[in-house]
């Protein structure tokens, strides 16, 4: 029968098997490649990845390491863009869910722009904002804004019934209080979930933008280093991206559970 529950112990063992299998498969491919060409750097062995780490942590002419420079640039752009995009989408999404005239005004343009892939908009951001920080922030900000504003608006409109709103008024709430104390608090866990789901796409668009027009950052470094087949550097950045993505997801899930215990799992 499907959906038979699995014990926690079994779950841990299965996870360890999956990670171990992945690790061994990589080592096997690396071993085979090294047998063919002992100087290959395309699939370096796990131990030789330490050379990649050394390249990343050796100070350059400016006295900074690639790792620090790239992480600062990429995550600075990501968090600034996310902050602006999330802030704006919350204001716009809640306003659309609360006031039908704002909904009528903004649904068509937001629905339209949400359908354009942000990477396709790169040329527009490039023309409008140049190639500096502003361009990457605009890219990340707008990439999350349109989708997030739509999901927040849907939640604000549907997660609280008209009866719930009318009842709040009958209990003495003002319109501002209905928005903050009822709409906002009801949709908060969904907003956190939507943000969590938007971090992945935002990172995709940012790395792609850095890959194309960056002069520093993880995407830029991956492009330059992969061209000269320094895959040991590339793999470390891939591990860093995966681990940071998991960490952000874990932190947001814990934050949501702590802030909204009523929402369940």
């Amino acid at each position, binding site marked *: 029968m499907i959906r038979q529950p699995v014990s926690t112990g079994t779950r841990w063992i299965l996870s360890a098997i999956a990670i171990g299998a992945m690790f061994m498969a990589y080592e096997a491919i690396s071993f085979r490649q090294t047998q063919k060409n002992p100087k290959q750097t395309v699939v370096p062995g796990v131990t030789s990845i330490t050379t990649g780490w050394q390249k990343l942590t050796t100070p350059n002419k400016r006295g900074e390491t690639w790792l620090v420079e790239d992480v600062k640039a990429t995550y600075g752009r990501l968090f600034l863009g996310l902050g602006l995009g999330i802030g704006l989408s919350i204001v716009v999404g809640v306003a659309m869910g609360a006031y039908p005239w704002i909904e009528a005004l903004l649904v068509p343009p937001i629905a339209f722009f949400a359908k354009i892939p942000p990477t396709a908009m790169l040329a527009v951001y490039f023309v409008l904002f140049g190639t500096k920080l502003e361009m990457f922030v605009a890219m990340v900000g707008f990439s999350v804004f349109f989708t997030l504003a739509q999901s927040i608006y849907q939640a604000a409109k549907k997660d609280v*019934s*008209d*009866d*719930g709103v*009318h*009842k*709040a*008024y*009958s*209990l*003495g*709430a*003002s319109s*501002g*209080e209905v928005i*903050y*104390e*009822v709409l906002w*608090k*009801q949709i*908060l866990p969904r907003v956190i979930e939507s943000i969590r789901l938007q971090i992945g796409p935002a990172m995709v668009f940012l790395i792609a933008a850095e890959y194309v027009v960056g002069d520093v950052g993880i995407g830029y470094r991956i492009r330059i280093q992969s061209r000269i087949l320094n895959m040991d550097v590339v793999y470390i950045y891939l591990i860093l991206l995966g681990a940071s993505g998991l960490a952000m997801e874990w932190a947001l899930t814990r934050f949501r559970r702590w802030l*909204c*215990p*009523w*929402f*369940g799992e």
Partner: protein
Amino acid sequence: MDALDIRHVSHWFGDHQVLHDINLQIAAGQIVAIVGPSGCGKSTLFRAILGTHPTKAGEIYADGERIIGPSRRVGIVYQHYTLYEFLTAKQNVAFGLKMDQTSLPFRCFKFFQWQAKRREHERLSAAFLDKVGLHASVEKYPIEMSGGMRQRVAIAQAMIMKPKVLLLDEPFGALDEATRSDLQKMLLHFYQENLAAKRNGEIPPYTIIIVTHELNEAIYVSDRVIGLSQYHQKDFKGSTIVYDAPSPVFHPDDIRDFDRFIHQRDELRKVVFASDDDVNE
């Protein structure tokens, strides 16, 4: 002064007349049941009394003040509870006190005074929940409670605000028979409090209008039954009041014997639930 005064209220949607010249005065302390066939405009009338959907003609006054929008003078309990899922039972009941006695700037900028106020609100709320038999569930979220418990919280949430009129919209419709009976008795307890207040020369605290499709319930919990019907006259458009009579008052400890009002129930059924065909005959 009447707790609720409905004067010449009519309402229509396009060509479809729903309410026709409703006139109704309800004194403080009455528990009034409104019954009527489906589509007779009970919900339209309720929304008008609540102030969310004004009628096209007529005026409604609660405690002498005209209703022009929802306010804390009129409270509401819906069939499907409509509790705030993100608040515990205690916080749900204290919600109105918080909205009524404090403001957003007060809660943000006078944090310590707000905390003191919040503790006071939660103490009052816990006491009210105790009164409706939920002393063990004050910290539970709605999702952790049964339908009956949620409805008690919803009633406490509305009643703690001491509205001039409390509207109960099919409040027990989604509950099992045992829970329904318990909550009906809770209303009878409130009525006893009204009688005690009258004896002491005070204004009775609870004026309640309950909409129900269950005739036994309507007569059992109320002291007055109103029948609303669209089938009162041949080719007449819109519902109006076709039945208005006192109903027997039960004490919560009395046996729940519906046979005591069998004649009134039959009369009510005949007058209110007569179909178009019956009228035409």
